[in-house]
Each structure stands twice: as C-alpha cells, then as structure tokens.
C-alpha cells in the first residue's frame, strides 16, 4: 500500500497564485479547473435565482430554505481555501442527493402511505373537489345567457341573464341584480352588446376563459347560477359542504355526514361517495402487513422472491463461467486473430440490452420464431414455466458473457507471472497452478465487479420485462405474477398494471424490501471478500 501524505492543507490556490507560480506555462493562468469552477458557480447561482420567484409565489418555504442554504454553502466551499475535498465531492454529491437520495427517502415515505389510484390527491385538493360538485335545483328555470366582461373583455366576468318572462338580470361573482330595459345595449339583430363597462365576449374569448367560466357561480336567492353552455345558465346547489371545525363533509342533499377514514370521506355505514376522490394518508405498516398476510400478494411474492435470487446468482455464475472459459482459451500469445475474436465477441454486450431482449423475444417465439424453425422443433421457449426460466437465463447469458470475458481477460493479464512461475518451480501442474494460484487471485480482483453484477442482475428489469413480460402467468395467482417475474418487474406490474389501478404505496414497500435484501447480500459479500479492508 502506498503511503499517501495528508493533502487536506490547501496550497495557495486561485488564479493569482497560479500566475505567480506557474511561470513555465503562463497560458494556463486561467486554469481549466478555475474556468470550470466559475462556470459551475454561475450556473448554480443562476439556477437558484431563477427558481426562487416561483417558490416564493407558491409559499413553498422548505424549498426556498433548502435552495438558499445549499447555494450559500456551495459558494462558500468554492470561494474558501479551507475546503479542498468538498470542492471535488460537491458536484457529484448534489446530483446524487437530489436525484438519488431524496427519491429513496421519498420512496420510504410513500411505502407507509396508501398513495395510489383513488388516493392520489392531498386532503385539501379532495375537499376542493368535493366543494366544486353541484346538484341542479329541481324544477328551477333556465336563463338565456350572454357572457360579458369589463375592460374590453379582459376584466371581471359577468353574466347577462334573461328569464322566460323576458326579465333581465345582471350577475357577477358578487351577486345578481335586476336590470331596467334601458341599461342594456342591443344591436338591431337583438344581440347584446354591452352593459355599462361590460362588453359581450365573442366565441374565441369565451373559449379562452372557459376554466374561469366553469368555476363562476353567482349567488342568488334561487341558488347558485352557473353557465352551462355559452348561451344558457341554470340554478344549482352546492352538493357538499366541508366543516373545518368538525372535519366532516356533509351532503347537503341527503344530509349524510362523512368523516375522514384512511384518506377517504366515509359515512357512518362505512361507505364512501364515489364522486369524491380520496387523498393519501400515512397508513403505517399496512403495506408491509399486506405483503405478509394477504394470500393474494404473499403467495406469488414468495415464488418471485426465490426465483429472483436464483436468477441473479445463476446469471452471475453462468456468465462468469463462460466469460472466464473464453478468456482462458483466447488468452494465448501466439493465437492468431485474438483481436478479431475479441472485437466480435463483445458485440452482444455493446448492443443496447433493450434491443437484444426484444430480438430474442422474436427468435424464441414458439410458432414463428427462427430458433424453433432451425431446430425443426416446437419448443415452448417462452410459454412453459420451466423453459421460460431457461430462456431468460440463456438470454441473460448471451447479454452478459462478453462483459465477464472482458474483465476476466484483463484480470488474467494483470496477474504477475512470477506467481505462476513460482508455483511451477514448486512442482505444481498447470491445472493446480490455475486452481490454487491464478483463480483465487482472479476472484479477489473481480469480486467487487461480481458483486456489482449480482446487484445489477437482481434488478435486471429489461431482460425480464421485455423478453417475456415476466410470463408465463402463474395459474391461480390473484395478482399479476409470472413464472419468470423478479421482484422489480412484479412490483412494476403490481404498481402500474394491476386490475385495481395503481398501488404506489405497495410498490414502494416492495421497493424498500428489495433495497434491504440487495444491500444485505452485498454487505455480507463485501465482508466475506474483505474488499473494504483497504478503507482506512
């Protein structure tokens, strides 16, 4: 181990000192690093300033605080001379924090909520939705309608209403008043032009302000007058009323009172009105309990769980075995065409795997796939539970062996030959030398990469999902689970393809479990391989 000296102490830096000290190359007085630094700082500060108005506007104070604090911190780190390591660590860390760590934490939160179809809003949004529901007043009359607005059609909206008897009313959000005939300006065709400052809107203006019109309600003694088309208005009553004090929602038509239960307004009889959406609430360990106790989820979950491990381990073992075999075979100095072989053999790895998976899907098709055609057989590669597993492993072997071949070749070439020579001197056969000297060294070298490969394959969504969509389906399973599904594809299907809609809470709970399992296995393997011993 090289003994590295402590370099935390910063030598004088900055453009000035670079000029003084770097006489041999004055053109580097503005070092690339310094220019990068300036650009980076400018971008960070610019981005922060650009976002602040919108955040202040929405009153999103946690956002404002974190943006200001982190920007000031970044400026400090880069303008100070005492924070050298941080200068190098911050750029990657920022992105990792925002787009990796925060999503993980957020996933952890969602796992404890009932977030999903039907419970996707906040409570305030749900109440707002409920209060925007109306019931029409039975037997009430309709009005002929002209839509007007002040300030040449840009300002406050108003409705000019004419009832069946020909009486005219002028309504704004403030209320309804009767009009004398003379107050309305009408053209020869009987079309309303204006009332006071309010002028009639044309169809284009009406469609521009459609959203405003839909939420416009004019209070009157009859009820709430609302436009229903561009030329008619009718009287409505509000359907629900929310009482913040008692935290209840009352149906004004039936008098039924609803209280919030698990993110849904629920009546005493336990029923929730279908027209009011639910909102997401923290439900504690409910999602995890469902995984353990609900038969429909637990049964397939256990099968998927076991297969996930089998798939990941076998994928690593098979690809490594084939890759190593090829590396040993081709790693011979007098073998002609080694470079050509190598260049061609890595093509499966160089091809984007989403393409390869789809290509294999076509090749392995039972009825018109090329493989069955070539073999003259009718093998159910993708439809038989066992063959589907074999196929997935075969395709993953195809995808992964070039990588293992590459790293094995590199590792073989990096092992000092003195070691092997020494073993020959001690009387070892080539096979013994390989098994007892080369292979253990190879494993030490490649262990971190093999573990990374395991972690990757544990969540190898592309191969499983694109090759066979996790199929064939497990018969009798009540959730969408297939014989080749691994946890992440199962989760994805559960979250986005379930018959009952999206269940983000449950999906996040499974995502957390996957994380714990992968991290656990990796930590265990790292400890076994002592790859972390170097970390002083």
């Amino acid at each position, binding site marked *: 181990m090289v003994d590295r000296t402590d*370099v935390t102490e910063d030598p004088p830096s900055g453009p000035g000192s670079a000029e003084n000290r770097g006489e041999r190359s004055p053109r580097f007085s503005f070092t690339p690093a310094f220019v990068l630094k300036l650009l980076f700082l400018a971008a960070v500060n610019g981005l922060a300033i650009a976002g602040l108005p919108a955040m202040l506007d929405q009153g999103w104070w946690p956002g404002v605080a974190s943006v200001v604090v982190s920007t000031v911190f970044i400026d400090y780190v880069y303008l100070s001379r005492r924070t050298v*390591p941080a200068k190098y660590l911050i750029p*990657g860390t920022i*992105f990792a924090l925002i787009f990796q760590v925060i999503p993980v934490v957020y996933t952890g939160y969602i796992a404890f909520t009932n977030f999903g179809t039907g419970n996707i809003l906040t409570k305030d949004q749900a109440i707002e939705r409920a209060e925007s529901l109306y019931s029409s007043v039975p037997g009430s009359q309709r009005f002929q309608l002209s839509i007007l607005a002040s300030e040449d059609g840009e300002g406050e909206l108003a409705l000019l209403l004419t009832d069946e008897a020909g009486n005219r009313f002028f309504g704004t959000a403030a209320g309804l008043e009767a009009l004398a005939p003379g107050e309305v300006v009408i053209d020869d065709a009987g079309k309303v032009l204006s009332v006071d400052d309010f002028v009639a809107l044309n169809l284009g203006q009406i469609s521009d302000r459609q959203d405003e019109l839909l939420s416009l309600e004019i209070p009157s003694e009859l009820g709430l007058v609302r436009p229903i088309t561009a030329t008619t208005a009718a009287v409505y009553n509000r359907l629900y009323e929310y009482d913040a004090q008692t935290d209840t929602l009352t149906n004004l038509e039936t008098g039924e009172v609803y209280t919030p239960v698990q993110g849904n307004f629920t009546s005493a009889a336990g029923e929730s009105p279908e027209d009011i959406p639910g909102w997401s609430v923290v439900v504690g360990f409910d999602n995890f309990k469902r995984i353990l106790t609900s038969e429909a989820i637990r049964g397939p979950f256990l099968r998927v769980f076991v297969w996930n491990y089998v798939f990941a381990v076998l994928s690593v073992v098979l690809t490594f075995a084939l890759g190593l075999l090829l590396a040993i075979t081709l790693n011979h100095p007098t073998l002609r065409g080694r470079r050509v072989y*190598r260049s061609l053999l890595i093509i499966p*790895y*160089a091809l984007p795997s989403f393409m390869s998976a789809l*290509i294999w*899907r076509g090749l392995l098709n039972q009825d018109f796939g090329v493989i069955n055609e070539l073999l003259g057989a009718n093998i159910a590669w993708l439809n038989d539970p066992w063959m589907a597993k074999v196929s997935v492993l075969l395709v993953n072997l195809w995808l992964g*062996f070039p990588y293992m071949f590459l790293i094995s070749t590199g590792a073989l070439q990096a092992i000092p030959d003195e070691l092997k020579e020494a073993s020959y001197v001690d009387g070892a056969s080539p096979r013994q030398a390989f098994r007892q000297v080369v292979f253990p060294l190879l494993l030490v070298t490649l262990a971190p990469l093999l573990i990374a490969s395991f972690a990757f394959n544990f969540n190898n969504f592309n191969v499983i999902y694109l090759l066979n969509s996790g199929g064939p389906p497990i018969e009798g399973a009540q959730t969408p689970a297939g014989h080749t599904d691994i946890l992440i594809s199962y989760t994805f299907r559960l979250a986005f393809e379930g018959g009952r809609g999206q269940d983000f809470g449950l999906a996040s709970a499974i995502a957390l479990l996957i994380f714990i399992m992968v991290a656990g296995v990796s930590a265990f393997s790292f400890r076994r391989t002592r790859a972390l011993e170097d970390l002083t």
Partner: protein
Amino acid sequence: MAIAETSGRTESMTRRAGGMSPFVGWFRKLGWRHLVALAALVFALFPVVWIVSAAINPVGSTLTSQQLIPESPTLDNFRALSNTVPYWSWYRNTMLIAGGAALFNTMLAALAAYAFSRMRFRGRRTGLLSVLLIQMFPQILTIVALFLMMDLIKDVYPAIGLGTRNGLFLIYLGGAMGVNTWLMKGFFDTIPVDLDESARIDGATHGQIFMRIILPLVAPILAVVFLLGFIFLINDILIVRVVLGLGNQENWTLGLGLWQFVNDRFSQRWGLFAAGSLLAAIPIIVLWQFLQRYVVSGLTQGAVKG
C-alpha cells in the same frame, strides 16, 4: 499476457518431447482455441445476423415470411423510418442526453475519486461507504418518487421538470456517484503519489495536479466509465417513459421509440424495429472497438491494486 506465454512455453516443451504430428500438436496448442472461439462467435452473432436480415427484408414481411438472405434486399425499412416517425430526433436526443450525461457523470465521478484517493478528511470512510450504499438502490426502484418530484419541480423550474429532456438529463446525473466512484478511486490509487508531490513542490495547485497530471494518466478508466455509463443510459426505458412518455414524440429517445414499435404490434413493425436498432447500435459498437483496450485495463487494474 506473460502468464500465457509461460504456459505456452511449458506446453510446447512437453509436446516436442512427445513427438506428435505437427497438426495434432497445433490443434492441441491452438486449434481447439479457434474451435471454442468460433462456437462462441456463432452464439454471440447469430441474433445480430438475424436482425440485419430483418432490416433488409421487404417492408411488411413478418417473422415467418422473413428469409435469412432475402431475394430482393431493400432499404425500404430505413426509408420508412425517416418518413413515418421522428427517428432522427430520437437519435439526436439519445446521443445528447445519454452521451452528455455519461460524459458529465464521468467527470463528476473523477472529481470525487480524486478527493477520495488523494486527500484525507473527516467523513472520508463514511463517504465511501455511503456511495456504496447509494449504489444498492437503483433509480428505477424509486420511479414513483422520481415522477412525483419531477412533477413538483415542474412548477418551480418548468425548464427541467416533468416532460422535459433537461429533466431526464439531470435525473441521469443522479447516478454519478456510485460504483463509478469506487472503480475510479481504485484506479487513482495506482498512480504514484510521488507525481503529485513533485508537482506540488513545483508550485502546482490541487486543481492543476488534477487536470494536468492525474487526468491524463487515468484516461483508461475515464473511457471505461464513460462507455459503461453511456450503454447503461441508452438501455433505460423506464425512466424515459415516465419522464417523457406522455409528451411529444419528438422528445423521445431511441429506447422509448423503438420499444413502441414492437410494444403494440410486434410482428408488423418488426422491419422498422430492426432497421432502427441497427442504426442505433452502430455508434456504440464503433465506440467499443476504439475504447475496448481501455475497458479491459481500466476495469481490472484499479481492482487489482486494492
């Protein structure tokens, strides 16, 4: 290299002593290696040959009617690709987003690796272990959270929120710290510290040491991390789909676009898929051929030393 030489020498010595015919000797020494290599090539290239064939088969031929070597090979699929979908926009997007993000990630990881390899500071061990831990939680597991976050960001920074290519780019940058940092740190550790020392005595700043001494020496690992990152990002279809899937097709990437070809009607647009895949694979395979030797040394060298 050297090991193989040794074993080669040993083998040939034994052979000569045995007095076999030249062919048998050649076969036992090298010939079988060619056989194994050829078998592996057939396995590796068979699907590739088949997709080339699908691309030049006439438009409308299905999996069953396709001939390995079509009687009338045609470029119709390629033409249809340009005419019916914004294929070249996908292509440009992919190269810019995946390529740009991979490049950026490489630089970010190199910066971090430099600090971890060359400096001793409080929290260094914790930092290295956290990087390892982060890596265990792939971004696709957090897809729901990412979606909600991007939706929130859209309100504040519309230019980088949900449905924008910039947003996708930034999400990809979230993966900069991870196994890359470790790989690079291992490689950086193999560069003798004496080099930094002497440069420092000559008055170089830490920035100059990094840019002008370390970076040129670690070029192989930079190539590796870039290439592997590029391939990884090109393969992403889940995050792209969530961020850009509902928006304008012009903004899509190759992954999303090509997937759509075969997602709805597999057999009907097979030719287009094949042609599109071929064109997409070319730059990556070319890159591989150039960077291959770096990849081999880069991936293993850092690990060996540790």
